[in-house]
């Protein structure tokens, strides 16, 4: 592929999805787009780019974008965010809120493991004093992967990565090599196609936003814009969870890391303020 063709593809992908393709990602472009070319009856990537130059919007461009998204996911991935959710976020809300209702957004839901992990975690609390009523919304830029998420069908390999065996037995039904998630868990998650570059206005408010392992593919400017947009769809006491290698530091002042909780961020003036003021309030009450 010529440098000019590579740049054309990189611009197209960046413009439509925010994903940055640097030159060292050339191997990724080759391995992912050669099958797209073949499926569309094109001889090679040169022909693919030539066709895209004529029509950069349409099924072929959509197929290119689908192919360039990364859909790596597994149940309870990295564990820490789920510990943060269960052991910090829920107790903080329980202490400070009048109702036990939540709206959670999984902003890069991929094949559904993250939202379903949350649904199982919350289901385990049903009937206890720690029960919460939650709406879980999973969005992704890949329509294909959203179809897989909606189906809730996983391979033996997929159900063995991060999913405790007790939850597998409890919430999945086996059909040969395929494991189907319990319809009751499946019904707890609503999936929608969504591009993080678009306006968030129609999404509504979210108490908790999981936006993990997606911003790593974006440039600094796009990350900043997305953080700003996320801040606007959260209440003052909302929480943001990022992937292990991601941070808001140096990109936005809207979020501050929650001390002692890796990957967990609160809106500036939200949770952090409460932590500082709570002991003083207690002192005042005691005196």
């Amino acid at each position: 592929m010529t440098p000019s063709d590579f740049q054309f593809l990189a611009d197209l992908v960046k413009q439509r999805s925010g994903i940055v393709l640097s030159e060292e990602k050339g191997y990724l472009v080759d391995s992912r787009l050669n099958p797209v070319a073949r499926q569309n009856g094109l001889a090679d990537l040169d022909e693919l780019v030539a066709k895209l130059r004529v029509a950069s919007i349409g099924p072929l461009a959509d197929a290119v974008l689908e192919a360039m998204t990364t859909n790596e996911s597994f149940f309870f991935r990295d564990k820490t965010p789920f510990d943060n959710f269960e052991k910090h976020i829920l107790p903080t809300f329980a202490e400070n809120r009048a109702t036990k209702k939540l709206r959670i957004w999984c902003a890069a839901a991929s094949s559904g493991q993250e939202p379903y992990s949350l649904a199982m975690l919350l289901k385990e609390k049903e009937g206890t004093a720690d029960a919460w009523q939650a709406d879980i919304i999973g969005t992704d830029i890949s329509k294909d992967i959203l179809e897989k998420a909606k189906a809730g069908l996983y391979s033996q390999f997929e159900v063995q990565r991060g999913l405790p065996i007790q939850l597998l037995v409890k919430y999945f039904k086996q059909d040969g090599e395929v494991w189907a998630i319990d319809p009751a868990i499946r019904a707890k998650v609503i999936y929608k196609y969504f591009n993080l570059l678009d306006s968030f206005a129609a999404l509504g408010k979210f108490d908790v936003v999981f936006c993990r392992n997606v911003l790593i593919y974006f440039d600094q400017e796009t990350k900043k814009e997305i953080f700003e947009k996320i801040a606007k769809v959260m209440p003052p006491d909302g929480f943001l969870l990022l992937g292990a290698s991601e941070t808001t530091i140096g990109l936005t002042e809207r979020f501050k890391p929650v001390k002692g909780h890796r990957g967990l961020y609160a809106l500036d003036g939200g949770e952090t303020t409460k932590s500082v003021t709570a002991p003083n309030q207690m002192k005042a009450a005691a005196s």
Partner: protein
Amino acid sequence: MKQCLVVDDSRVIRKVARQILEELSFDIAEAGDGQEALDQCRSRMPEAILLDWNMPVMNGIDFLRALRAETNGSQPVVVFCTTENDITHITEAMQAGANEYIMKPFDRDIIEAKFSEVGLV
């Protein structure tokens, strides 16, 4: 260093599991069947056991029941690792005291994920 007893009648599987678990900083002991594993546990109880189901002399599930009846037999974390990949076997293993369950074929990621799940790594 934590010891993991790898119980499998296949030398190849034991070798692969040993390689993976040594990378995860385990000291490895091996047994080719349940009886041999039980004898080893009686002289030194390991912290973890990676356990096959179908083996000669004594199978995995009988070994697990015998182990859990031993003094200190509740201590090791037992992770089944077997081709018995149906829910009936999984349930039976959990009821007999297994802590986790790996369905073969497995790879390093799966072993690491499952051992992490039960607090071993």
